């Protein structure tokens, strides 16, 4: 390691001027171009979170319209055509544009902070992913507002989506998948590389915060699951655009091939959403029970085991397609088996509460609401894993109730809790506890009123995806109750919005670590400086902020005149290489725009791929044009 005289290191500077200098190097440039060029993981993470919540709000409004339509038999709030677009857009948005991106967004924001580094591994790819994702969101919703929203369900089963759709609606769905999966894969690669190589010194594998484990598991699941749906949606659009015959039954194609590919993605998808939710629970719980989570090892292994199992049970979405009985029984067994690691996590959390001293702040209320609700969803999940039971409840409101209990109970409740927990870190201000309690009780009670009756509706024979029902069916009463519950539930999100708006301006100042939590993101300022940590910390335990000391050992010798991160070894996290980290660039946005327009255009003609390749190539060449910088020193 030969330091040339002009190189400035952190050891050469006083504390104050070092901080100013490093902040200056890592800050996002001002001005509109600067804003669009940002590669700061915190800026991009927050953009993801705000965008995801925005589209969740829209999809929630879509759900309320559907609930009004179903409140009584033969209602005419919307017609069947509109209803089909609404339920397809609701499902697609919640799964592809809200749940997965928002979980990834929290990982993008917090993984670098929790592992004590300054940015994610591929910052420009991160920016690119966000812009592509935004493009997909806008395209889907612009289609809905122009009456060309997809209307074949979020699962887009062939042959309905292949040859029976109206206009270009199914193509919009297929390309929306392409956009969001591009973004998801980009984030997954970043998270894996970041967690593997950028942990601060001393953060060995058994000291990684559980939330970071959750992010890592999420990233690996995305890497293995998403290609299946990208392949299938590409096959679908090829069938529709250039008349291939992947799914054309009359010419040797197969209708069930779609379902196998889709659910090979679709089932892990549920766990892609749910596992980060559990990781949030495990991360928040210590702060509110004042003890580390019980059974760190069991929890981490449960995360990994659940992820592994989740790839072996896609067929339980296909129990009524007439597959061989023995094969079905295998998938019953595997679907039951996944309840074991999930149950183990729940037992560990209850043990943590049992042994801790609970503090009933809003995030903790959401944790309790999560356990109450999710256990119901998990148990109905065990029921639908049984082939005979599934042949009755499959595609009925029982299943609608089941997966809303799992996804809202298992992922949205932890997520709202996480918003209350980390809002001080995002903004430097606390959310109001009073409003927080109102928020929780509206969410919790509204949710139960909205979704519990659906179990009974399903058993009374109400199928999913019906836009209305006849008065002779005895479903009016429970549907009305459910609609009322849906509005109470929706009110809780209005309360959250009010709380955020008020607290942004006048919330109590938080300080670095308002909850007295254990993980590294609380070691820096709220909100964090652009560089996260002026000096890279060194940790020597799983709960670095609970070690009893106010001061931290840090690494010295990092450059103070350019963006630099520290790479460490995979398992022991020993300092390995100092590497420069890319600065702001407008090229990711340009590349996302050219890619986005090419994909959008390809809905109408296959030639778009040919013509569109040119601007995409230009933007990528611009992005990767050699800047003449020297190779990094090791």
């Amino acid at each position, binding site marked *: 390691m030969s330091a040339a005289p002009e190189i400035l290191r952190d050891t050469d500077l006083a504390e104050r001027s070092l901080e100013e200098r490093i902040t200056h190097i890592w800050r996002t440039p001002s001005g509109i171009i600067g804003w669009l060029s940002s590669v700061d993981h915190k800026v991009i993470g927050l953009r993801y979170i705000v965008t995801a919540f925005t589209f969740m709000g829209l999809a929630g409004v879509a759900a309320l319209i559907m609930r009004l339509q179903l409140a009584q038999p033969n209602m005419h709030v919307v*017609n*069947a055509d509109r209803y089909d677009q609404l339920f397809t857009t609701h499902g697609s948005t919640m799964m592809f544009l809200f749940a997965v991106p928002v979980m990834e967004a929290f990982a993008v924001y917090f993984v670098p902070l929790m592992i004590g580094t300054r940015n994610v591994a591929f910052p420009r790819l991160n920016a690119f992913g966000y812009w592509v994702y935004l493009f997909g969101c806008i395209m889907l919703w612009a289609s809905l507002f122009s009456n060309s929203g997809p*209307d074949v369900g979020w699962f887009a089963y062939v*042959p*309905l989506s292949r040859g*029976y759709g109206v206009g270009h609606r199914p193509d919009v769905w297929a390309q929306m998948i392409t956009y969001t999966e591009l973004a998801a894969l980009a984030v997954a690669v970043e998270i894996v590389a970041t967690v593997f190589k950028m942990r601060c010194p001393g953060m060995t594998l058994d000291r990684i915060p559980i939330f970071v484990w959750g992010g890592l598991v999420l990233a690996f699941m995305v890497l293995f699951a998403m290609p299946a749906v990208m392949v299938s949606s590409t096959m679908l659009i090829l069938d529709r655009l250039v008349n291939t015959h992947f799914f054309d*039954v*009359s010419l040797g194609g*197969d*209708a*069930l091939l779609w379902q196998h590919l889709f659910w090979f993605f679709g089932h892990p998808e549920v766990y892609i959403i749910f596992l980060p939710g559990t990781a949030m629970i495990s991360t928040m719980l210590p702060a509110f029970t004042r*003890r580390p989570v*019980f059974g760190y090892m069991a929890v981490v292994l449960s995360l990994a085991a659940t992820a592994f199992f989740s790839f072996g049970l896609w067929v339980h979405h296909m129990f*009524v*397609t*007439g597959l061989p*009985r023995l094969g079905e*029984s295998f998938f*019953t067994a595997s679907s*039951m*088996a996944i*309840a*074991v690691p999930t*149950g183990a996590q*729940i*037992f*560990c959390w*209850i*043990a943590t*509460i*049992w*042994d*801790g*001293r609970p503090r009933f702040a809003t995030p903790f209320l959401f944790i*309790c609401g999560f*356990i*109450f609700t999710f256990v*119901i969803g998990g*148990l109905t999940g*065990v*029921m639908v894993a*049984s*082939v*005979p*039971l599934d*042949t*009755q*409840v499959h*595609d009925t409101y029982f299943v609608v109730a089941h997966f809303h209990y799992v996804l809202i109970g298992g992922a949205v409740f932890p997520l709202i809790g996480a918003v209350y927990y980390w809002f001080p870190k995002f903004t430097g201000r606390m959310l109001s506890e009073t409003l927080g309690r109102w928020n929780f009780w509206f969410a919790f009670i509204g949710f139960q009123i909205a979704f519990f009756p659906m179990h*009974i509706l399903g*058993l*009374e*024979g109400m*199928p*999913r995806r*019906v836009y209305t*029902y*006849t008065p002779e*069916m*005895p479903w009016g009463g429970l549907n009305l109750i459910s609609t009322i519950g849906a509005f109470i539930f929706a009110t809780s999100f209005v309360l959250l919005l009010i709380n955020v708006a008020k607290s942004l301006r006048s919330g109590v100042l938080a300080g670095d670590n308002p909850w007295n939590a254990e993980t590294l993101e609380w070691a820096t300022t709220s909100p964090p400086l652009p560089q996260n940590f002026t000096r890279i910390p060194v940790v020597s335990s799983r709960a670095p902020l609970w070690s009893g000391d106010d001061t931290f050992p840090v690494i010295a010798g990092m450059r103070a005149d350019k963006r630099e991160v520290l790479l460490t070894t995979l398992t022991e996290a020993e300092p390995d290489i100092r590497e420069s980290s890319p600065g702001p660039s407008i090229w990711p946005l340009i590349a996302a725009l050219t890619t986005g327009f090419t994909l959008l255009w390809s809905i109408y003609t296959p030639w778009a791929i040919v013509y569109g390749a040119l601007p995409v190539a230009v933007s990528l060449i611009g992005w990767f044009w050699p800047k003449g910088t020297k190779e990094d020193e090791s």
Partner: protein
Amino acid sequence: MRRWAALGVAVAVVSLAGCSGFQSVLNPEGDNAISIARLFWFFLTVCASIWIVVMAILAMSLVRARRNTAPETRDQRRMGFVIGGCVAASVIILVVFTLASFFTNKSIAAAPEDPLTVKVEAHQWWWQVTYLDKRIDHRFETANEIHVPVGRPILLQFESPDVIHSFWMPNLAGKQDVIPGRFTELTFTVEKPGIYRGQCAEFCGIEHAHMGMYVVAQEPFEFDKWRGRQIGDSVPPTNAMLRHGYMVFVSNACASCHTIRGTDAGGVVGPDLTHFGSRLSIAAGTVPNTMANLQGWIANPHGIKPYTQMPSVALAGDDLTAVSQYLESLK
């Protein structure tokens, strides 16, 4: 909290047990549905108990008096054992569940002896029903309604010419998808005479909500009587009004889509109407088969089922009355 939880479960169980209906999983009258319902109550009882126990422990851990000391190793180890025990218990319960559903599955999938075989073809958005028979002249076709004798196994063989549908008669059996290019079937025995309703359970396009059907289970001798009538051709019109109605039917667009056996009407696009007057419903279970509903349906099908493939046929008032009376006379 525990008392609330118990109360909540009690309310749920009562409301489940109290509801009955002609399209309900909880009111089973077919062998297949009966064994599934038995399995359901077993699962529900065990799952509800588990939930109550877990919630009780959670509630206790929230309110229990706590020492202020740091956690002790001895306690930690004891808690580890308790958790290990809980995990072991869940494994045992899940194995029991898996075996229970395996054996139920095996029993409902057993091949029936001497079944009544009916071919069911699912269309957007109605059900074509063909009774198969070795004697070709004993085969006949109907729509949106399957009559069956009680006590005899029924074998339904499914086909779909368009998209995926799913046949579901909750009182009688679990559902079975109907998939283009695939051969699927379903077997069950109805235990009690009655009228059971079902509807398509797989999203099949814009009128998925209006794709219902009925199973009418009859004593064997009644079924044979019904079958005998259905095998025969349609009843010829007996008076001037009905003859006028018949002429309206064959001289308008009706006959190009619908068949009435024994007449010139031979269309194969829509349902066979040979014995239309004997059916329970119009437009695949959308409205009851009454004279008023039929007139409304013919005059403006989209008023009853907005996206039905049946076109509006402009008819004069007396033509409409006559054709409706004729169709209702086809018992």
